């Protein structure tokens, strides 16, 4: 029995699939693929699957990570890859299958690209203004609906404003996680702006050192 780390893209029509629904979709794809998958023990046996970092509904991901467990140690990884690729719908693309190096608790950051219809000069300077702030405190709904105040600025590791994109590197992981929507909500609020539409793509998941999570 061994763990296999699957890297995949969740694009296009798939972005309307919530994280919970995604686990069901993946388990069916795995079942359909016929790879020698490991089932959890117990009365209601199901496929073991662990997503490194859930992706919000509405976001695309170009380098998502999921761990599965197969019962045959000798089963070649390229066969896992090919079998999964063969059954995926057009908007899920399996990129690679590897032996995991780090546990998911080593995840520290994630890169996001926010695409706007247009980032004009005004918006550009407001972004500059916003990201140079020392601290921006927002209310965040925690578990059990408790609202707590958090300063988001220390959780923004890097940002870059392009022609019509905003790239953010944010704290990510199971202990601490910053959603780009929270950053944008704070941005619109501080300047009293009517929120504009943007799309979000998570482009990579990084470890605590800021290196690609492997």
């Amino acid at each position, binding site marked *: 029995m061994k763990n296999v780390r699957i890297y995949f893209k969740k694009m*296009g*029509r*798939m*972005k*309307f*699939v*919530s994280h919970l*629904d*995604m686990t*069901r*979709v993946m*388990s*069916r*794809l*795995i*079942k*359909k*693929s016929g790879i020698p998958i490991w*089932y959890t023990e117990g009365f209601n*046996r*199901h496929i073991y699957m662990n997503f490194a970092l859930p992706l919000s*509904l*509405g976001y695309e991901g170009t380098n998502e990570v999921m761990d599965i467990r197969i019962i045959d140690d000798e089963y070649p990884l390229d066969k896992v890859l090919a079998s999964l690729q063969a*059954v995926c*719908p*057009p*908007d899920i693309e399996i990129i690679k299958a590897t032996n995991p190096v780090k546990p998911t608790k080593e995840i520290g950051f994630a890169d996001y690209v926010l695409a706007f219809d247009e980032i004009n000069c005004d918006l550009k300077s407001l972004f500059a203004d916003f990201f140079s702030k020392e601290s921006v405190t927002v209310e965040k709904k925690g578990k059990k609906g408790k609202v707590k105040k958090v300063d988001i600025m220390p959780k923004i590791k890097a940002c870059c404003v392009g022609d019509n994109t905003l790239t953010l590197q944010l704290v990510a992981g199971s202990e601490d996680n910053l959603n780009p929507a929270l950053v944008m909500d704070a941005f619109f609020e501080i300047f009293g702006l009517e929120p504009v*539409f943007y*799309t979000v793509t998570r482009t990579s998941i990084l470890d605590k050192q800021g290196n690609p999570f492997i």
Partner: protein
Amino acid sequence: MDNKNFERLLLSVQKPGRYSGGEINSVIKDKSKVDVRFAFCFPDTYEIGMSHLGMKILYSLFNEREDIWCERVFAPWIDFEEVMRANNLPLFALESRDPIKDFDFIGFTLQYEMAYTNVLNMLDLAGVPLRSKDRADFTPIIVAGGPCACNPEPLADFVDIFFLGEGEEVDLEVIDLYKEYKKEGKTKAEFLAAASKIEGVYVPALYDISYNADGTVNSVTPKGDTPATVKKRIIKDMDKVYYPDKFVVPFIDIVHDRVVQEIFRGCVRGCRFCQAGFIYRPVREKSVDTINNQAKALCESTGYDEISMSSLSTSDYTEIEPLLNKMLEWTTEKYVSLALPSLRIDNFSDELLEKIKHVRKSGLTFAPEAGTQRLRDVINKNVTEEEIINTCKTAFKGGYTAVKLYFMMGLPTETDEDLKGIADLGQKIVNTYYSMPEKPKGKAVSVSISVSTFVPKPFTPFQFEPQITRDEIRRRHEFLKSCITTKKISLSYHDSSTSFLEGVLARGDRRLGDVVEKAYKKGCRFDSWSECFNLDNWMDAFDECGIDPAFYANRTRSYEEITPWEHLDYAVSKSFLINESKAAHGERTTPNCREKCSNCGANCYGEGVCFEKR
């Protein structure tokens, strides 16, 4: 609308996965390479429509053909409808996202009367004129099938073609005819006239209806050489009929998210209230091998880990034990679970019982439908109190503590005595539990009683019966409630006002078309959803059309009266229904098809249970 704007709209509504498409096994074709585009519409939400077996069968059947591209369409929920209307987004098909008004066919499946306003709403959202007579263009042709097509009269003004009975063959025959007529440059009228000659095709515009002074139907007159009656189609050989080897696997959770394996059509029982028990006659089974192979292929192509057997009464499958044995050979090994709804297990071998112990058990449920043996004889429901109590005993021994019972209220000849019988049966089950030394320790028993309101339906022996009024339904609810004296029994009912409307539409005639349209224009849609249903709007619509709904729902019809569906032939003869009605009033039961044939008329197809050796 470009993709980006479309997605922006989707992100502003609840459950965008309902409208996104792109699911596993959904079919994408090159539209320049197909001759016929078919929009298969289910007039309810995605979650309900995607659970429907008939739609899965026809979707795959059509798409097997290279020249047809069939796509799915569901009724957009209220929030998305608002967004669509505000942004001039016409109703589109999930696969291509193309507007369905440009398709060759727009087809609806009519599973329940309460979806009629959704049909109109979907036509309107598509940008298609509601009434057939206002649609001058050849396409789109509006077609509809499903159980409600057995009396489709309330929708007769809106739909060009109804398919009666099972669609696998007749639908394709009509599509082929369409291709031919389109190629030859014929008109829509010519096409409809030719289609009406195909068995199972009902073109309502080709029949004139006249009425008597008392409001009943006087005559149904076919125009020109249109056939006087239209006979439903059935599939004769269930082992040869097409069955999909793939289902579209949805991304979001739906009502029945699993492999659904059909095992037979029809029902031998003949419960007198049950429309399905009559309109799907005769019973035709699939063989064990067919079922086993089809279920296996579906599991492989979908990745589902659960199979549900589909039929009106699984226990009546003649080879149920060999079937389960065969399927368990591979399902256990592949971690696939079998769901066996309403399966009676009294006569199974110990060995099989042991094997299906691991089969996911749905709770302990019974549908006695009526509270006394007298009334059960009236409705021909052959469940006895003794059987129920005995099964409960076995189940309690096996650790069960919850029992669910389904009843109907307002059945013909029902008295307060019969209602009290419902409460008494519940009490007897509670008493049985406490009288057993082997009952699960430290646990209380719970009996939940669910009561729906009886709705008389066409093509049943009760088609002549009045539905009880809403006031009387309320009184009986209160009475039944007063009969229940323990907290161990919980009681729930189905809303009485929707049953009333269902009763009106089920036996309605063409004049109700105006009412449905008015109600829809007043904002009625999703009438089967309690959060959307608005009876006041419906009552206003009846009022404005000068139509008394009680005429349709609450009146006793004579055996001689011409019904609005008199020209539709569902194989069971009217004389049989009259005999059955008389037997009901005489409290006499009728044996099931396997015990003895009662000559209902369904043997006219030369197939099925009618020709089994008894």
